[in-house]
C-alpha cells in the first residue's frame, strides 16, 4: 500500500517535466531526424514521401571545408578554454571563503549576461575605428588596412570569450574538492612542482576536466551567432549554413539534414564522456558542477 502511494507520488512530481520535455524536446529532435529523409517541396517546406536525396545533397563540395573549420575551431576553443580554466579554477579554489565568493560571482556574471551583448562588445572593440585596432596600429603591430573583424581569429577569440566561464565552473568545483595534501605528499617524495601538477592534480580533477571539455566543445560545434556577427564568408561554420537554409533560401529538409549531422556530432562526444566518467566514478550523474 505504502509502496503504491509512493509510486503515485513519484509519477505526480515527475510527469509535468517529463511530459513537457518529451513534447517540446524529444519529439522535435526526432522530427529533425525524420525530416532529413524528406524531400523539399516547391516552397522550401517539407514534401511528401521519403527520400535519401536530401542527405545526399550534403555531398555539396562547399560542405567539407565548413565542417572541417567547425571542428577545428571547436577543438581550438576547447583547448584554449581548458588551458585558461585550469589555473583559474585552481586559484579560485585555494582562496579564502570571502574572496572565493567574490571571484565566483565575477565568473558567473558573464555566464548570465546576454550572449548577444557580449559578442557585440567585441565587435565594437575590433572594429576598424575601435580601440584595439587603433592601439595595435599605433604600435605598428598591425597594418592600418588589416581588418581585425571578419576572419577566423576574431571568431575564435569570441568563442573562447563566450565559453570560458562554462569551462571554469566545473574545473573550479573539482579543484575545490581536491585534497591538496596529495600534491604536498608527492613533493615530499621528490616530485618537482610541475610533476605534482601534472601527475597528481590533473588526474585528481579529471571529472571536472571532462565536464568542462563537454560543455565547451559541444555548444561550440553548434556556434552560429558568433561567426554571423564577427566573421565573414571565410569564417562560416556549420551553424551558419543551417540558419541560412532556414532564413535565407528556405529549405527546411536541407536544414534538417545538416542538423541531423550536427546532432550526431554532438551525441558522440557526449556518450564518450558519459562512458569515461561512469567507468571510474560509479553511477554518480555527471555535471552537477556546471549548473
Amino acid at each position, binding site marked *: 500500500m505504502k509502496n503504491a502511494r509512493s509510486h503515485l*507520488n513519484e509519477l505526480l512530481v515527475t510527469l*509535468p517535466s517529463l511530459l513537457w520535455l518529451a513534447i517540446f524536446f524529444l519529439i522535435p*529532435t526526432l522530427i529533425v531526424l525524420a525530416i532529413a529523409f524528406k524531400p523539399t517541396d516547391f516552397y522550401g517546406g*517539407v514534401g511528401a514521401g521519403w527520400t535519401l536525396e536530401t542527405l545526399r545533397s550534403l555531398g555539396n563540395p562547399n560542405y567539407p571545408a565548413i565542417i572541417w573549420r567547425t571542428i577545428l575551431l571547436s577543438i581550438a576553443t576547447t583547448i584554449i578554454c581548458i588551458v585558461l580554466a585550469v589555473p583559474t579554477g585552481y586559484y579560485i579554489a585555494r582562496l579564502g571563503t570571502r574572496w572565493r*565568493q567574490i571571484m565566483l560571482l565575477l565568473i558567473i556574471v558573464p555566464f*548570465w549576461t546576454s550572449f*548577444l551583448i557580449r559578442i557585440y562588445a567585441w565587435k565594437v572593440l575590433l572594429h576598424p575605428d575601435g580601440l584595439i585596432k587603433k592601439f595595435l596600429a599605433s604600435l605598428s603591430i598591425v597594418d592600418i588596412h588589416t581588418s581585425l573583424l571578419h576572419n577566423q581569429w576574431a571568431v575564435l577569440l569570441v568563442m573562447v570569450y563566450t565559453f570560458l566561464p562554462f569551462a571554469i565552473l566545473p574545473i573550479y568545483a573539482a579543484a575545490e574538492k581536491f585534497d591538496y595534501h596529495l600534491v604536498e605528499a608527492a*613533493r615530499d617524495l621528490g616530485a618537482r612542482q610541475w610533476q605534482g601538477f601534472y601527475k597528481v592534480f590533473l588526474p585528481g580533477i579529471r571529472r571536472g576536466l571532462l565536464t568542462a571539455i563537454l560543455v565547451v566543445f559541444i555548444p561550440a560545434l553548434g556556434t552560429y551567432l558568433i561567426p554571423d556577427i564577427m566573421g565573414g564568408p571565410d569564417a562560416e561554420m556549420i551553424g551558419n549554413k543551417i540558419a541560412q537554409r532556414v532564413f535565407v533560401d528556405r529549405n527546411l529538409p536541407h536544414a534538417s539534414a545538416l*542538423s541531423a549531422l550536427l546532432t550526431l556530432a554532438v551525441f558522440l562526444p557526449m556518450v564518450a564522456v558519459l562512458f569515461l566518467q561512469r567507468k571510474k566514478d560509479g553511477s554518480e550523474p555527471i555535471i552537477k558542477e556546471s549548473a
Partner: protein
Amino acid sequence: MKRSRAPLVVTIAVLIFFYLPILILVINSFNASRFSSTWGGWTLAWYARLWHEGEIWHAMQNSLIIAVSASAVSVVIGTLAAFALHRFDTRLQKTQYLLIYTPLVIPELLMGLSLLLFFVAIGMNLGLLTIFFAHVTFCISYVAMVVLGRLQDFDFSIIEAAQDLGANWWTAAVRVLLPLLAPGIIAGGLLAFTLSIDDFVITFFVAGPGSTTLPIRIYSMIKFGAPPLINALSTILLVVTFLAVWISQHLTEEKR
C-alpha cells in the same frame, strides 16, 4: 611549500579579458561621440533617445511578458522535477535526468530548429506563444539543476518529523519543504528570467511577425547600425542581469 605565481597571473588576465569589453561598452553608452574610439564627453543623450524609440519599448514589453510567464511556469515544473530526481532513485528518474540534462549541453541552434520544425509540423502559428513554449523548455533544465543543488544540502528527516507529527505528504511538502527551499527556487526563477530575457538564438527560430523580442531587436540594430543606442540598451540589460545574479548569489549562499 613555494607556490607558483602563474595561476594568479592567469586569473587576473582572465578577469580583464571578461570585463574589459563590457566595461568599454558601458562607458561608450555615455559617450557623446558617435564613434567608440573618440571621446566626446559624458552624455545621457542616448538613453534619452532610447526613451522615444517606440519599437524598442514594444520589444521590451514582449520580452517581459515572455520572461515573466516562462520563468513562472518553468519554476513550478523544474522544482517538481528536481524534487523527483532527488527523492526517487528509479529508472524513470534516470530517463528524466537525461531529458533534463541534455538541453543544457546541446547547441541552442539545434533546439531552435527542432522547435521550429515541430511548430510547423503541428501547424501552429509562430508568435509569442511559440516563444513561450520554447523558453519554458530550456528554463526547466536550469531551474531543476539549481533547485537540485539546493536539495542536496537538505535534511529530509525534517519532512519525516513533520509526517510523524501527523502531517500528510503534501502538507509536509508545502508547509515544511517549500519554505526551506524557497531561496533555491527563487534563484532558479531569477536564472530562468534572465536566460529568457536574454535569449536570442532559440527565439529567432520560433518568433513570428509581430513577436519581436528585445534581443531580436538588438540583433537587427547590430546588423543595421545605430551603435550608440545599442550601447545604452545593452547597459540597461547588463544592470538588470547584475542585479539578478547578485540577488540570486545572496539567496543561495545564505545558508552555507
